[in-house]
C-alpha cells in the first residue's frame, strides 16, 4: 500500500520531458518533489505563474509570489507571470499537458466530484471546474477509500459534480487505474496489495485483464 508520498512518486513517473503541468492542492503538490532526473517539467499555478519553483528559503518569502494554495513560492529561471485570464486561457486552450488533482469521488465514466458536500460549508470550486473541463490529460490522486472505509471509485458520483467524463487515470494508495469506456481498468497494484483487495475497495465497474503487475515506486 502507498502513502501520500508514494502516490506522488508513482504519478511522477507519468511525467514527460517538456510538459507543462498543473498540480492541485494536497497530494498533487508533492509530485514536484519527485520529478525524475533529467526531465524538464514546468509547473503552472493557476493564480498566474509558469515555472513555479520550490518554497523560498526562510527570510526570503515574498508576499507577492504565491501559488494557488496561497503558499509562498519561488520562480525558476525562465518563469513567466501573467493575469488570471491568461492563466485559464492556457488551461482552457489545452496548452497544459497534465493536470493532477484530488477527488472525493470518481465515477467509472470519468465523472469527478471534489468540491462540495451538501450540508457542509462550501468553500468553492476554485479553478477545479475549469481544469477538469479543459484538460486532455487528467490524473486523480487520492485514497482509494474514504475515512469511513467506503470506496471513492463509484459507478456514479453521489456528490455534486465538478466535471463529467473527464478523468483519464487514477492513482490511489492501492492501484493505478485507467478510466475506459467500460469502466476502471486496473493497470498496476500497489506494493503488497492483491487484486482482491482492490476489487473489494472499488464500487464502480472494475476491469481486470490478465496478470496485474505490482508497481515499482
Amino acid at each position, binding site marked *: 500500500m502507498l502513502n501520500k508520498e508514494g502516490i506522488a512518486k508513482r504519478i511522477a513517473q507519468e511525467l514527460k520531458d517538456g510538459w507543462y503541468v498543473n498540480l492541485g492542492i494536497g497530494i498533487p503538490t508533492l509530485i514536484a518533489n519527485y520529478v525524475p532526473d533529467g526531465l524538464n517539467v514546468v509547473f503552472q499555478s493557476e493564480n498566474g505563474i509558469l515555472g513555479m519553483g520550490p518554497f523560498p528559503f526562510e527570510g526570503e518569502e515574498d508576499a507577492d509570489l504565491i501559488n494557488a494554495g*496561497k503558499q509562498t513560492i519561488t520562480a525558476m529561471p525562465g518563469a513567466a507571470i501573467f493575469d488570471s485570464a491568461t492563466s485559464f486561457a492556457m488551461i482552457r486552450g489545452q496548452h497544459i499537458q497534465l493536470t493532477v488533482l484530488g477527488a472525493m469521488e470518481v465515477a467509472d465514466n470519468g465523472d469527478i466530484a471534489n468540491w462540495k458536500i451538501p450540508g457542509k460549508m462550501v468553500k468553492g470550486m476554485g479553478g477545479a471546474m475549469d481544469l477538469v473541463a479543459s484538460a486532455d490529460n487528467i490524473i486523480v490522486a487520492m485514497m482509494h477509500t474514504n475515512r469511513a472505509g467506503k470506496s471513492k471509485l463509484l459507478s456514479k458520483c453521489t456528490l455534486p459534480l465538478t466535471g*463529467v467524463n473527464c478523468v483519464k487515470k487514477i492513482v490511489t494508495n492501492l492501484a493505478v487505474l485507467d478510466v475506459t469506456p467500460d469502466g476502471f481498468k486496473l493497470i498496476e497494484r500497489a506494493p503488497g496489495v492483491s487484486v482482491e483487495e482492490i476489487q473489494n475497495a472499488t464500487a464502480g465497474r472494475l476491469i481486470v485483464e490478465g496478470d496485474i503487475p505490482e508497481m515499482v515506486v
Partner: protein
Amino acid sequence: MNKVVGSVELAIEGIQNGMTLMLGGFGLCGIPENSISALVKSGVTGLTCISNNAGVDDFGLGLLLQKKQIKKMISSYVGENDEFERQMLSGELEVDLIPQGSLAARCQAGGAGVPAFFTPAGYGTEVAEGKEVRIFNGKPHILEAALTADFAIVKAWKGDRFGNLIFKGTARNFNPLMAMAGKITIAEVEELVEPGELDPNFIHTPGVFVQRIFEGKNYEKRIEQRTVRTKTN
C-alpha cells in the same frame, strides 16, 4: 490628464449602499488594502463584492464581512474565513460561486464589450443550471455572461498619473481584468510615478481603464501560508 486623487477617501467617493464592486487579489495577495480600510470606515453597506476570495477573518474583505457591509459575494473560493462561514450558513450572506477561470474570463469580457461567451467549464455541474448548452467540436460548452461593476478597485505595484499600471509577481492575478470591467476603476499603488517613467512596452494595464489613482500607505501585505525550506549545507 491627471487621475491622481489626494486621498483614499476621495478615491472611494461615490461608492454607495447596494452597489456592485470588483476587488482584485488572490487570497491576500494583491488586494487593495487601503481602499478596503476606507470602505470599512465609510460604513457603506449592502455591497455585492466580486472577488476571487473573501479574505480572512481579520484582513482583506473579511474586514467588510465583520461589519456586515457585504450583502453578496461572487467568488470562486471562500475558505479560511469563519465569519464568512457563519453569515453564509445563517443566510445573512448570499454567495455565488463561479469557476475561477470563468470568473476571470467574465470580468475580462465585461471590460472588453463581449456580453457572453461559451466555455466548457462547469458543464454537467450545478454551475450550468439554467445556462444555455451548446456543442462545439463534439464537446459541450455553456454560455457565460460578462461581469461588470459600478466600481473596480485594484492594487498595483507602480502606476503613473495617467493610470498606467504595472503589477509585481502573482499580485497581478485578477487586478488587470477587473480594472477593465469597472464603470469607475480605482487603482491604489505602492509607488506613484510620473508619465514616462514606466516603459510603454511593459504596461500591464493601460491608463484608459483607470479613472482614479493614488499611492497607498502602510501596506501590510500579509502572507496567508508562509511556506519555506531550510538551507542545507
